[in-house]
């Protein structure tokens, strides 16, 4: 297990995200992992995927890593720049966005995400930023990918506050609320494994464990009765080509390593 470390966990997680992106997908991204994943995909198997930022940008050509979805480097070179109503309305609400990337301070077994409050809403223990674009992305993109830390604090059987709906309380809930058909969380990528959502129960189950993480350890750190896929397997490590793209083209200064300090190890 302690073989020479050829990659760091955030690189592996970014590659997991990239592999979920198909060629020609329209992808709404935030900063950090989502942008990295989408860029890896574009350099590998999905050259025609198009990224958009909710602030109004389509197909940006940034010359440095964007540090926010409104970053100055997203402006020059973009294919189109409008505003929130254009991206969130004309593209997302109108049903044209294939994939949204979200992260959550707290994520539950149905892929519901909390970015509003830890503790009581009116007397918060910790007040978080709020929805921003997350709720509409989780509601309206065809698929959502969720990035989260894998421990009993960050994962929950039920989030304190549903900022962004996943499958809410299980099968049929999105339909009951009139949300677009066949939408919802597609994968939950953590620092320990990749979870997917059961078609029937809508509950997250373990699809793959990262090298160095065991199924037992993962179950231990998951606060619901985690089902294991019959085809559970070790997560594919980043290929040499993926690592080359990350290190030589996308992130020559290794900024992705800040996620190690945030616990993504």
């Amino acid at each position, binding site marked *: 297990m302690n073989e020479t470390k050829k990659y760091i966990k955030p690189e592996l997680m970014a590659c997991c995200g990239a592999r979920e992106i198909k060629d020609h997908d329209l992808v709404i991204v935030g900063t950090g992992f989502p942008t990295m994943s989408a860029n890896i995909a574009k350099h590998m198997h999905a050259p025609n995927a198009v990224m958009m930022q909710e602030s109004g940008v389509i197909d940006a050509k940034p010359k440095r890593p964007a540090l926010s979805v409104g970053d100055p480097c997203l402006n020059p070179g973009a294919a189109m720049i409008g505003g929130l109503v254009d991206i969130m*309305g004309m593209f997302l*609400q109108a049903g044209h966005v294939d994939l949204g990337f979200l992260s959550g301070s707290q994520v539950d077994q149905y892929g519901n995400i909390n970015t509003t409050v830890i503790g009581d*809403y009116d007397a918060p223990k910790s007040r978080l930023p709020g*929805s921003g674009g997350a709720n*509409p992305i989780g509601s309206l993109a065809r698929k959502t990918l969720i990035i989260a830390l894998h421990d009993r604090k960050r994962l929950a059987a039920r989030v304190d506050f549903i900022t962004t709906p996943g499958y809410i309380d299980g099968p049929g809930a999105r339909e009951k609320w*009139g949300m677009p058909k066949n939408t919802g969380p597609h994968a939950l990528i953590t620092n320990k494994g990749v979870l997917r959502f059961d078609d029937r129960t809508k509950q997250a189950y373990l699809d793959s464990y990262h090298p160095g993480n065991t199924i037992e350890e993962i179950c231990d750190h998951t606060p619901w009765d985690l089902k294991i896929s019959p085809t559970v397997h070790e997560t594919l490590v980043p290929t040499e080509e993926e690592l080359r793209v990350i290190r030589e083209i996308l992130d020559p200064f290794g900024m992705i390593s800040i996620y190690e300090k945030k616990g993504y190890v």
Partner: protein
Amino acid sequence: MSKVVSMKEAISTHVSSGDFLFIGGYICRTPFSAIHEIIRQKITDLTITRSNAADDFDLMIGAGCVRRFISTFLSLGLYGLGRCYRRSLEKGIPHKIEVEEYTNLSLPMMLMAGAMGMPFVPVKDMAGSDLLNVSSFMGDNKYKIIDSPFDGGKTILVPALNPDLAIIHVQQADEFGNAQMWGIGGDCMYGANAAKKVIVSCERIVSRDMIGKDPSRTIVAASKVVAVVQEPFGSHPGYTPGFYDTDFAFGYLYQQASNTEQGLDAFLKEWVYDIEDRTAYIQHYIQRFGYAAFKKLEADFDYSFPVNYAY
């Protein structure tokens, strides 16, 4: 006919305690100098709105200007959670603000409805989330759910917003208030047009003829504008495309300062209360960090081709 005034005059004439303000800028083109002037004039009890707020709204909350916030999000981005926002909601310092929460789809749509004179607008987000289970000062009027009169489907309606005043920062405007902007739009255009009147802060004032050379860039026409302020470097530490970059180092300085109430007070004294206007602010910036740091923020030259509207 010229509406050009100083920021001090624009704010003292058109902003009163208790007003409902839309303040533009989505990281891009934040009207920071106007925000500093509002704080300096000790205007309070404001209701403020915009999608995705950051250090700008955090500072106003910390300075005690805000009573109510129609929000979607507030964070310091790269630098984490909004310190003043948290202190207000978790500890009631300086007081607990009232927050009405929407999303980056629904709030811009509410401003769009306001701009269009529509009473409300249907949105497809928020369904099934706890955003429908909490409301503050808008009470039952935060949203309504109806069966669509067209297909019977469950439909969420949110009300139009019409702020008393919008304050925006743009690249250029003429003396009458025709305001031109380029780059990331956020909810600036609809927010400005939803308001009853608009203060335009701009990097440069240009002639009416110059506006007419590329009129498609105008986002607010003069009729709604009550004041025009030429305020170079007016959105620092935010950015204005084609003029200057985001000042990430200053963002860190604000994060560190706002970590504590004492730090925030010192920050407000240094950068707001002891500063007369934006010119003094720039001078102070250069004294504090050096001219090289100031110049380093300046945008490169990368002009587009001229456009031709002739027939």
